[in-house]
């Protein structure tokens, strides 16, 4: 079970005119893994992720997500993934339960299942008092936790997180990563970009993008050993130094 490949990327490239945003990247992600997708700003992380979730088309190369080709079967992929972006993207003028109901409904869940699962979720998050609160009046950390819960509410095979913890305090970040571990235990693969190097340590495996290429890909401990670094921060800085892009 653990060795099923859920994301398979080979020689994926994205060009915008003369600019190569993503340069011939190849990697695999196995099911149930927490995969950290690291890189400096402008290294091409978000572009790569957008190709995987069907928001943009590749220039060349192939990739499969949950067994579907990203070039031809992006609509199938969308049924099997969850996504949460750095820009907070629940509806601010809907209540907590209404947001959950909307996104669950979009993925084809039935009214009765939605109602039951919403109760469970709110209980688990200790959110029951906020059921009827408009999302815009929640604090940011709570919004992010809710957004993550909504992204995995329909039990996707893999969830893509684009800098999910940006701007969130350390305590909430910890809670957030606990939720990520919980999702991974439920066999949801987590594919996350982040800026926080301490978070990279929480990942099973980490890839580091520099100038559109993947320059390193391994477990955090192997990377630290290889680069003779005391923490991921040092690994990252050693690699990022090679960058020629601004």
């Amino acid at each position, binding site marked *: 079970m653990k060795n099923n490949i859920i994301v398979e990327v080979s020689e994926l490239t994205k060009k915008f005119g003369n600019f190569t945003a993503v340069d011939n990247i190849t990697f695999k992600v196995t099911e149930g893994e927490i995969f950290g997708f690291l890189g400096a700003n402008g290294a091409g992380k978000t572009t790569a992720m957008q190709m995987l*979730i*069907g*928001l*943009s088309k590749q220039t060349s190369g192939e990739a499969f997500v949950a067994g579907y080709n990203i070039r031809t079967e992006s*609509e199938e992929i*969308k*049924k099997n*993934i969850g*996504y949460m*972006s750095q*820009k*907070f*993207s*629940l*509806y*601010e*003028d*809907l209540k907590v339960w*209404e947001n959950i*109901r*909307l*996104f669950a*409904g*979009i*993925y*084809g869940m039935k009214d009765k299942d939605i109602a039951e699962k919403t109760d469970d979720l709110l209980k688990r998050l200790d959110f029951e008092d906020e059921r009827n609160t408009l999302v815009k009046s929640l604090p940011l950390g709570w919004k992010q936790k809710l957004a993550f819960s909504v992204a995995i509410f329909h039990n996707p095979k893999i969830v893509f997180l684009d800098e999910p913890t940006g701007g969130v305090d350390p305590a909430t970040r910890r809670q957030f990563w606990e939720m990520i571990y919980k999702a991974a235990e439920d066999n949801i693969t987590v594919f996350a970009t982040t800026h926080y190097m301490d978070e990279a340590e929480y990942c099973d495996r980490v890839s580091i993008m520099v100038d559109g290429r993947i320059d390193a890909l391994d477990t955090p401990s192997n990377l630290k050993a290889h680069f003779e670094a005391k923490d991921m921060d040092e690994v990252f800085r050693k690699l990022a130094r090679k960058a020629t892009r601004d």
Partner: protein
Amino acid sequence: MGTLKFLIEKEFKQTLRNSIIPKLIVGYPIMVMLIFPWAINFEVKNIKVSVVDHNNSVYSQRLIQKVDASKYFIINNITSSYDEAMVDIEKTNADIILEIQPFFDKNIVKNKTADVMLSANSVDGTRGLLGNAYLSQILNDYSSELRSELAHTDMSPKHKMSAINIIPQYKFNENLDYKVFMIPALMVMMVTLICGILPALNIVSEKENGTIQQINVTPISKYQFILAKLIPYWIIGFIILSIAFVVVGLLYGIWPAGGFFPLYISSLVFIVGISGLGLIISNYSETLQQAMFLAFFFILIIILLSGLFTPIASMPKWAQIVAYSNPLSYFMEIMRMVYLKGSSYRGIANPLLFLTAFAVGFNTWAVLSYRKR
């Protein structure tokens, strides 16, 4: 289909929770129908006249009284000097000078003809022109009145001329009431603004908030997304129109002569079409600012070139071509025909066909240009 239910539910919750839109839905049609029919009015009234009376006789007095009695004119000044009247014009105290020549009474009695001179201030062209026309009408009346009087006094058969009266007859709007003419057009304008601009702004604000990206990674098809956006505005359009129908009926006693059914049918077609135009605008705009500007650009053109204020037939050729490729022209035509003439389906079949073509065209374009990236 199941997904659509959730999306429409969301749109309604958001719309009703909005602090302005629900009030707008009720208040807008009432306000427009209450105020605009009185304000948007091309009748020229209260034209100020300075009379230069060189004659000062019974006949000239009678003429002045006749002018004064007309609802169109206000006698501003009666003087014996043309220069003084010109000062009135310069100070904009007068729009027209009516100059009565010295031997007005004698000429009328002796020669059966007399001269008066009209000078109109044409800075405000409509006022000058229409004032002139109205005043000439009064003079004509007066002269035929005098003729018949004089004919009666000296009874000789040669003076018995029959006064030729031109009685214009205006069909379907007998009193040439501008309100009746403007109301159907105002309804069209209202629906255009509500159903054309609001959905466009709604979609673009989802782009700005980033929520559309979240929607784009879900399995929702673009048809479902677009339909869910439009259906609430279609319903809002119908509510607004219905409120307007009732307000106009109760307030002005004007009910559609051709019945409600053809109105609703053509409104449906028009609303679907104009919201398609709104979608096209939203697809080409990334920010609310762009969408607003694009929307106003198009709305201004289609409203001004629709025959709302000025008849299409009196536009220059190129503008007529624009007007005939404008869905508003056809909807306005239908609304006026049904409201005033009582046209039924046979009468509106042609413009309705054009409207349908627009609706299909706009929406096809909208769906093609919406990219679910």
